């Protein structure tokens, strides 16, 4: 019985799409993190900078390793960061997803080891989230890899059958997210600022953190009691987060408070990627069905708004180029707007569902106009 439960819990099937969405978000942030370091490659990562490689190695545990311990020319470092940024971009788009992600991870982690003094919490979280995403087949949905696979498969098995994966990498990620909150909650619990309710005050009254210091400062004093309450809410929410996760209601409450907290941090404080990264991790708690429901609603609205009738493509299955076109359309047609009808011996033609003929140029124009951006790359 326990074995069966464990098998369901840890190895049961899971919709890939929420993780694919997380892949896109984390990929964008990692791309930015790697590319922005090019500007400080010399100062922060090279032997000509303020922390030469031998000094950095002396500071670290000997088990730490970084590519940048062996490469010390600023131009070479910048080139490697560019490669890392490019791979992170491929990971985001889902082209050669896993190999590109591995390369981006190694380069990102290497920058962290080479000079840990320039890091903040979001750097660690981005690296860790990227690691978990590499354990998952997150390129199976909403990716160029997925489109290529569909094209190879002739557009079959699409729409009705979402890509699935085993649950275990997601379970590990969920555990890590809960642990981040619990660990930071315990750490804060030992601090007087959180019990006194002044932590939020000192964060918002500090120009280093506060995004709207000059605007907000005059009113801060008047809302000090509210800040005290919010400080305590933050402390206890972090402490309780892990224990609320197993229960559906608790999960909803905890994630909702998280949206509020991280949204507030994002708006009010200059802590660049911390909030977005933590919010992205919430996707590991979201079911594929809820994203699907949102997506389908959007599709229907778009279809109703832009298309009154489906477009029909009749083609000869013996015609290689026509069949290829039909396969690509089937693969890309997330909106369910095009019906491809194979008929032996017919010439390739386009029409509306009512039967009215449509010139090919107009048909292709309509397709380009409505397919997602990725579709434009293929037509």
């Amino acid at each position, binding site marked *: 019985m326990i074995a069966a439960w464990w098998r369901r819990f840890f190895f049961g099937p899971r919709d890939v799409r929420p993780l694919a969405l997380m892949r896109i978000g984390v990929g964008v942030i990692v791309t930015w993190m790697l590319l922005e370091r090019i500007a400080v490659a010399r100062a922060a990562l090279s032997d000509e900078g303020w922390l030469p490689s031998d000094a950095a190695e002396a500071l670290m545990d000997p088990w730490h390793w970084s590519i940048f311990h062996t490469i010390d020319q600023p131009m070479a470092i910048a080139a490697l960061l560019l490669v890392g940024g490019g791979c992170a971009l491929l990971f985001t788009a889902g082209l050669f997803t896993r190999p590109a992600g591995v390369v981006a991870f190694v380069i990102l982690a290497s920058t962290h080891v080479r000079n*840990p003094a320039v890091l903040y919490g979001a750097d660690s979280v981005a690296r860790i989230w990227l690691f978990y995403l590499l354990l998952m087949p997150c390129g199976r949905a909403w990716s160029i890899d997925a489109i290529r696979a569909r094209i190879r498969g002739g557009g079959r098995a699409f729409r009705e059958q979402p890509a699935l994966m085993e649950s275990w990498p997601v379970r590990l990620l969920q555990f890590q997210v809960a642990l981040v909150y619990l660990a930071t909650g315990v750490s804060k619990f030992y601090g007087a600022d959180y019990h006194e309710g002044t932590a939020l005050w000192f964060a918002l009254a500090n120009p280093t953190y506060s995004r709207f210091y000059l605007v907000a400062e005059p009113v801060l004093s008047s809302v000090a009691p509210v800040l005290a309450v919010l400080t305590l809410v933050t402390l206890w929410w972090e402490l309780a987060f892990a224990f609320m996760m197993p229960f559906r209601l608790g999960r909803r409450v905890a994630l909702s408070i998280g949206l509020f907290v991280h949204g507030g941090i994002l708006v009010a404080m200059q802590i660049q990627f911390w909030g977005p990264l933590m919010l992205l991790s919430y996707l590991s708690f979201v079911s594929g069905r809820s994203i699907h429901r949102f997506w389908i609603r959007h599709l229907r609205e778009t279809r109703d708004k832009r298309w009154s009738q489906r477009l029909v493509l009749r083609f000869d299955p013996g015609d290689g180029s026509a069949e290829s076109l039909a396969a690509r359309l089937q693969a890309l047609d997330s909106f369910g707007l095009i019906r491809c009808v194979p008929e032996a011996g017919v010439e390739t033609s386009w029409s509306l569902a009512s039967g009215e003929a449509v010139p090919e140029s107009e048909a292709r124009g309509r397709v380009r106009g409505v397919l997602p951006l990725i579709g434009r790359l293929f037509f």
Partner: protein
Amino acid sequence: MYVFVVPIPGRARRFAITAFAAVHVIALLWWNFGMVQLRPRDQEPTQGDGWTRMHEVADVVDGSGNIRGFLTGYVRVAALFQQWVLFGPNAPHETGRIEVRGITGFDIAGQPILDPDVLHATEDGGLTDETQMIGNPPCGWSRSDSSRATFLRASYAKFHASVAAEERGVEYIGVQFLCMVRPIHQPGEDPEAIEWRTEVLWAGPVASNAAPSGAR
């Protein structure tokens, strides 16, 4: 199928993944909470805590019992891959109560290498790009008294002094690494009534390649 899991079939594969997950979860718990217990309570948390703890772990658990030794091995393997999944308590439990504005260097003989006026002229105190990347001084290494932080400050000051001297074509014999600090005001206080004071973060010779004082 997965990066590190060889395609073992059926039950054996599930067992292998479960075993990995168990070790991983125990290591995470131990990393996050075992070490918290080992840390002195009066240690001021800094943003460098992550890698400081790595040293503490290695120092404290070396040669201890089997399970600890095993987990140390796992942590060290993980360290080999740059602490890939180890996330410790990152948030300082005491928020910064000091506002720091501007970090600069001076010729120790009194001739400024970096312009001291920028400390007062702009809101960001003339922070350079590199300074911005270092993080927020109130909870970062620049406020810590640890030897590691001193070493990093020295390296940073040395680099900036070199760059500034090179740009201006001046000789230098030493540098002071300074910042302007003032306490963050309490509710009801006027922040502008609180005066800034200059604080020396590090001072020493920078003309030679010798390791700066404070290195360990």
